[in-house]
């Protein structure tokens, strides 16, 4: 088979990195088997790719084969009495909530964008703004089927092939290709959530609000003005949200309809959002974003409670389509660190100060509350996470790279972890240090068992396990 025609330059979500690969469209499980055969014959490696929504190199495989799973996107079964859904890995979170919400259900864990696919969500074992309460995406999987590079097809659940269940989920697509997923949805009584918004004046207040607010909330998330220094370091705004109880919403059938969830395509009713990112581009620099952050902080001073559709509350990243293009030619990277609650404040104080001192501010800071989970390559801790977006330019690459290395050291010293849907620079040494030798050994052993010829590889895999 001549795969020359399939050679395509693929990008990460932040448009900051790309790598060429031979892209094969996958429509059926049989084609996954065929792709493994082809890869073996040609001496190439294979990575599965869903929506390409990772900020890093997890769905890139430079010079190898990439399986485009996005067309394998059928919802095979929806049991609205039990809230059980069985779907193929290319199904997006958007498809999922469109299917289940009108029947009174919601996906228990979602990312900040609804464009992600189930396969990708499981590979990275994503979390949402309710990680402290509902855990990760994988915790709501009842069962999945994966094809291993050995040719074996395995069905895994917490009780069946449990070792593979807890390692293929979180395994970054490096143990097998998931071809079918059954998940349990969460029952809801309204298409709306009730949101409390209130300001926090510094990092200590921010983390305290997350810590104290979590037990009484269904979702909690902090926004951080990453330009503020001194005594205002870490200031921002908290959004804590609750599901509505039965009877709170007088007309749940109406609010749960897809058309009443959809993000409006226009701003002020007239301005199409599809072109908004062009107007953001001139602001995508230190000055512009410091003004945006300041304006947002001033606006956040008003403490208020409001109701909002689920989709509008969760999928902030989809609010301005193509926003990631506004960062310009160098694109953006995200740096997300997870720290135990005891060390988070001091470590992030050090990191935020470093970034301001170096003149390399993050343009967007987001904090969340987390809890540990049982998955092998877990990123979770009993503590908090801080996600920071950085613009990449020709001139700042070396300085930013050096600073992120210092960040890595601070996080490691503080007993923290990283998340590989996000971090693009973390080295093999750092990954080994936070996963721990024993976990790495366990993972390599499973890798040898599932993939003895080393067919599954991504740029991410080579970076952190190479």
């Amino acid at each position: 088979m001549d795969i020359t025609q399939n050679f395509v330059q693929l990008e990460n979500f932040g448009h900051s990195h790309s790598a060429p690969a031979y892209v094969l469209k996958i429509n059926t499980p049989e084609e996954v088997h065929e792709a493994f055969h082809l890869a073996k014959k040609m001496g190439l490696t294979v990575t599965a790719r869903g929506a390409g929504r990772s900020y890093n190199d997890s769905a890139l495989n430079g010079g190898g084969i990439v399986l485009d799973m996005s067309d394998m996107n059928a919802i095979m079964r929806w049991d609205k009495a039990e809230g059980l859904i069985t779907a193929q890995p290319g199904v997006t979170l958007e498809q999922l909530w469109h299917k289940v919400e009108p029947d009174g259900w919601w996906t228990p864990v979602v990312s900040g964008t609804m464009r992600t696919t189930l396969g990708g969500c499981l590979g990275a074992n994503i979390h949402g703004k309710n990680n402290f309460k509902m855990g990760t995406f994988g915790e709501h999987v009842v069962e999945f089927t994966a094809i291993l590079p050995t040719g074996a097809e395995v069905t895994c659940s917490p009780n069946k092939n449990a070792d593979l269940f807890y390692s293929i989920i979180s395994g970054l697509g490096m143990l097998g290709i998931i071809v079918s997923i059954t998940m349990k949805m969460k029952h809801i009584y309204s298409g709306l959530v009730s949101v409390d918004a209130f300001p926090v004046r510094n990092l200590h207040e921010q983390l305290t609000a997350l810590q104290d607010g979590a037990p009484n909330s269904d979702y909690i998330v902090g926004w951080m003005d990453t330009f503020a220094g001194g005594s205002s370091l870490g200031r921002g705004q908290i959004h804590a949200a609750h599901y509505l109880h039965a009877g709170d919403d007088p007309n749940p059938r109406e609010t749960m309809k897809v058309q009443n969830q959809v993000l409006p395509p226009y701003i002020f009713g007239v301005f199409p959002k599809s072109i908004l990112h062009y107007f953001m581009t001139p602001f995508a620099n230190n000055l512009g974003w410091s003004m945006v952050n300041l304006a947002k902080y001033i606006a956040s001073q008003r403490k208020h409670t409001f109701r909002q559709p689920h989709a509008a509350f969760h999928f902030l990243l989809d609010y301005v389509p193509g926003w990631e293009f506004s960062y310009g030619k160098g694109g953006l990277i995200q740096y997300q660190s997870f720290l135990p609650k005891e060390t988070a404040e001091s470590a992030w104080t050090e990191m935020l100060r470093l970034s301001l001192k170096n003149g390399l501010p993050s343009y967007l800071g987001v904090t969340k509350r987390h809890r540990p989970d049982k998955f092998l390559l877990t990123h979770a801790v009993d503590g908090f996470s801080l996600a920071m977006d950085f613009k990449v330019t020709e001139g700042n690459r070396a300085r930013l790279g050096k600073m992120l290395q210092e960040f890595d050291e601070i996080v490691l010293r503080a007993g923290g972890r990283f998340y590989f849907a996000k971090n693009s620079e973390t080295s093999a040494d750092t990954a080994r240090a936070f996963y721990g030798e024993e976990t790495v050994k366990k993972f390599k052993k499973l890798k040898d068992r599932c993939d003895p010829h080393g067919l599954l590889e991504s740029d991410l895999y080579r970076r952190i396990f190479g």
Partner: protein
Amino acid sequence: MSETKKMMDKPATATPLNPRKRAIIVGAAGGIGAALSRKLAREGFALALVDFNQQAVEALRDEINQTAKETRALAYQHDVTKYNSAPELLRRIIADLGGVDSLVYVAGMIYFPALDEYNFAQDSKMVEVNLLGGMAWMGAVAPLFQNAKRGQIVGVSSVAGDRGRIGNPGYNASKAGMTNYLEGLRNRLTRHGVNVLTVKPGMVKTDMLKLPGAPKPVLALEPEQVADLIWDGMRARKQTIYVAGIWKLVMLVIRHIPSFIFRRLNF
């Protein structure tokens, strides 16, 4: 791949903050090839060094990696006249490098015939190495670059391709073919975002000039100077460069010498 021997680890993967460029240099162990390899390594490239001379290409690889204190170059033994093996080796190299940004074809050979000597064995060898090998490699990478909508092809031709001359019709023909092939590639690929750079060196102080029958050096450059100029051309994504620049002027004159004069000249 029996004819290929790869050693050492692969170069580190590229990241957004360390967007390592990657180049394949075919004919890496020769005079210009080795100088360009060292230059690109200093510029941070990850390199695949391809050459017929296994010992030389492995020594160059080791030297580059030791200087860089990391794996920056991989070595591959390959005979460019084994045309059919180029696509497969290319695929292997792109997988090893994790991608490819530039392909440089600098493999070449020359034989200096006497003025009354018509040596088909040598002429065909020059066409095979200087032209056909280049077509095999560049023709293999072209569709990949075209599909990826990016990339750069650098072909080292020669001022000798600008006119057919009394001294070496076979060499002239091989380089004229190369220049013409590169022009065609450029016309095909520019619209797909691919840069095609034709490099026309004049005389270069390499082993070629030490061969029997070689002319006396005129305006000759060191290989290192040539490498610097090629890199400048690559970085600026130029179309055609003469190396050194003075040859552009010289060849402008020579290209315009009418045939009735040219056939009476002795160079």
